[in-house]
């Protein structure tokens, strides 16, 4: 197939970006989307132009390092990471024709400044975790693993939330640029387990304060986040977050140092 790519080019964080268009021929349908970008870069190289910078590492849908907005959708038209999107998935769209134009932009959010072309800085998500997204246990101080049984359905629900890969698609998709699905996923993961109870209320207050300080917006229940989440983290995690927050405020939970 032949395609046109319309790609956001931006030299660095301080410069202004713009779109550029490139034509490609001979694309095979079992190529992954990132392999098409690799090929484009070989083509640009041959033309003496600078390749497009984009992030990826595992290319298996698990590290969360890749991620671009494709035709207006975070990670593109199917629910997966960008690296797991294949040309055949794009070609399944009835409006896709030979020579169609595909628009590619970086994650859009004030919380994620663009570093170059399609690469953004997502360190804000780490800072939310630093604020309390963990269970405090010193190495070597852990009790025998079987001493704390966990109900299977709770363990499964915790796992569902723990599957978040921190890609930031939820933020990119949200009209409020809210990182609530990401934050809620961590709160659910740890809050559903018996090990996570002692710090549960402090955790939600601390993490949410950081979330807001990073400039992410509030959640108004639009649901775009869960719709694009490649790991199918359910919207329920936000409900749980709100429930814990309510509980924390009622108990007068303050932030901890």
């Amino acid at each position: 197939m032949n395609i046109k790519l319309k790609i956001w080019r931006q030299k660095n964080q301080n410069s202004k970006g713009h779109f550029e268009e490139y034509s490609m021929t001979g694309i095979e349908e079992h190529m992954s989307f990132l392999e098409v970008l690799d090929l484009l870069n070989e083509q640009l190289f041959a033309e003496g132009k600078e390749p497009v910078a984009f992030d990826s590492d595992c290319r298996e849908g698990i590290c969360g390092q890749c991620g671009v907005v494709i035709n207006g959708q975070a990670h593109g038209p199917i629910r997966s990471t960008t690296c797991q999107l294949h040309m055949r998935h794009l070609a399944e769209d009835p409006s896709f024709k030979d020579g169609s134009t595909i628009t590619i932009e970086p994650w859009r959010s004030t919380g994620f400044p663009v570093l170059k072309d399609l690469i953004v800085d997502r360190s804000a998500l780490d800072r939310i975790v630093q604020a309390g997204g963990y269970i405090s246990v010193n190495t070597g101080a852990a009790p025998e693993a079987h001493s704390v049984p966990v109900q299977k359905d709770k363990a499964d629900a915790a796992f569902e939330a723990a599957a978040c890969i921190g890609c930031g698609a939820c933020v990119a998709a949200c009209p409020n640029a809210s990182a609530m699905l990401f934050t809620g996923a961590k709160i659910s993961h740890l809050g559903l387990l018996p090990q996570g109870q002692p710090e549960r209320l402090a955790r939600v207050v601390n993490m949410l304060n950081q979330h807001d300080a990073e400039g992410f917006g509030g959640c108004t229940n639009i649901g775009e986040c869960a719709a694009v989440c490649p790991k199918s983290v359910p919207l329920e995690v936000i409900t749980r977050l709100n429930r814990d927050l309510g509980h924390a405020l009622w108990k007068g939970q303050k932030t901890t140092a």
Partner: protein
Amino acid sequence: MTELIDGLYLQGEKIADTKAPHDVPIAQRWEQRKFNANLVNPANRRKLDVIVVGSGLAGGAAAASLGEQGYNVKCFFYQDSARRAHSIAAQGGINAAKNYRNDGDSVYRLFYDTVKGGDYRAREDNVYRLAEVSANIIDQCVAQGVPFAREYGGLLDNRSFGGVQVSRTFYARGQTGQQLLIGAYQALERQVHAGTVKEYRRHEMVELIVVDGRARGIVTRDMVTGKIDTHLADAVVLCTGGYGNVFFLSTNAMGCNATAIWRAYRKGAYFANPCYTQIHPTCIPQSGDFQSKLTLMSESLRNDGRIWVPKRAEDCDKDPREIPEEDRDYYLERIYPAFGNLVPRDIASRQAKNMCDEGRGVGPAIKERDAQGNERMMRRGVYLDFSEAIGRLGRDAVSARYGNLFEMYQRITGDDPYEVPMRIYPAVHYTMGGLWVDYDLESNIPGLYVAGEANFSDHGANRLGASALMQGLADGYFVLPDTMNDYLADMLREGKVDPDAPEIAEARRSVEDRVERLMALRGTRSVDDFHMALGRIMWEYCGMERRDEGLREAIGQIRALKEEFWRDARITGEAMELNQALEKAGRLLDFFELAELMCIDALHRRESCGGHFRAESQTPEGEALRHDDEFLYVAAWEWGGENQPPILHKEDLIYKDIELKQRSYK
């Protein structure tokens, strides 16, 4: 003493590990070593600076634990977040000798299986300790909230994994590595919050600083701004993962590289067993020339999937569902009835290759080049079939076990494995070689510690499944915090390094020079193009099967390719900005040199063992033939200088607690 052998390398003096206390029985050595180690008073720890390079299971766990102890830690990694280290991709599980299944498991059995699985090329002391601390790892991770699979009674579930007959593998669906890494990452972020660890994201270590014979710091390049900086410390820990990407195509993440350990090698650290490469049997076959990496399908699939090829080559292009039972060759079950589809990786991989070489491979034929450079069309795939399991267990049970893997397979290939058997083929997966370390995980450069896949220590010539995660976490959580105390206590007396030491400026200058030289290249070929060419040489001559003349050919071709690189490569962009071509070029230069050393190591080891199959050394049935009389040692290589042959130091492997046997899975 130094004699030039084969025109390729020099024979150096023997070495040995002196840190494991051999005056006590193996089961007491680790306790004894910990007891003998010097301690650092808590108030003094914050005066000591430790650099940890890497934030995977080994690095993340090490940085978190050292931070917890109160040391002043700096943790460097090249991804945008510590959580993205390559450990995240591990699917299948992590072993531990908990004996939760009451199936006869014990520390000794895990130790025994690991040494045997590694084809008796691992060091007994280190492996025993690994088995010993394995149970603590599970406790630690569960306490951190790692959501391992559980049974209805609320207790942890286990499964069995390739090469063993007990169920000792803990797992979190097909995402065990992710969940373990998130645990370590959260522990790390907790320390960042506490102020004991400082993270340096998107920073690549490009040189090691050695002053007066001790590791004293690193030189980094900020991958966003291009800025080159030096960071000094009292000790340096490298946890930088494996170097499988020397083959270009592998199951490793795109950024995995050898630079950190290679730079240390060039500064005097020994590189042990570089040629030991693990080839994983269950990967999705390559589908075209544009491919950037290969995808692993978890080995746990082998618990229920049956592997076969058609008995007759004529059937290879038929729809597999139309090939009747009697025309299928379940070759692993036929050749290895006791282990069947669960034989260790090296055996499963080699037999898959044999079937395809015989012309009984399946899937589309792809173009490949043989050793003489001739092109040929080959089918490189065997079936991994779940129809019997679906019949026996039902589709839902199969989907509960492997659903996410099936989905991933379908997304990549477009085929539905519930309907059509999967196609799999071996791919480069893990490197058992790495920097040489002693029992303390210290390299021969004092103050330079190496952990996880970056060191050579625990897996011998072949790694059993679910043991790399175990090693990374054992090293990071439980070994380094104890062994490094001993060294750091000394450093407290020794004092800080002089920031004006000439070695520091010199290390930095060498990095700047290299960047400058690379940016000046004005040729016609891209870095990726060279990397692909290197990968083809390595896979052809130093891959699953190696021969004397092939390896010699490879060494010549690698040297020529490297020269060609300096003549005809071009690096786009600028040095002082985010520049992915420049990053890749730096890594590729180190891969060129490493590739040559891998071939020399493979050439000198004229035996087959584990993942290293020398065609000249096989039994009449075509199985790997080891030569314990000649090769019962670790090959530790020393850098001999620019364009000089490397020097081989042998560390004898001494088996006192385990009897050496020819490994048989029949």
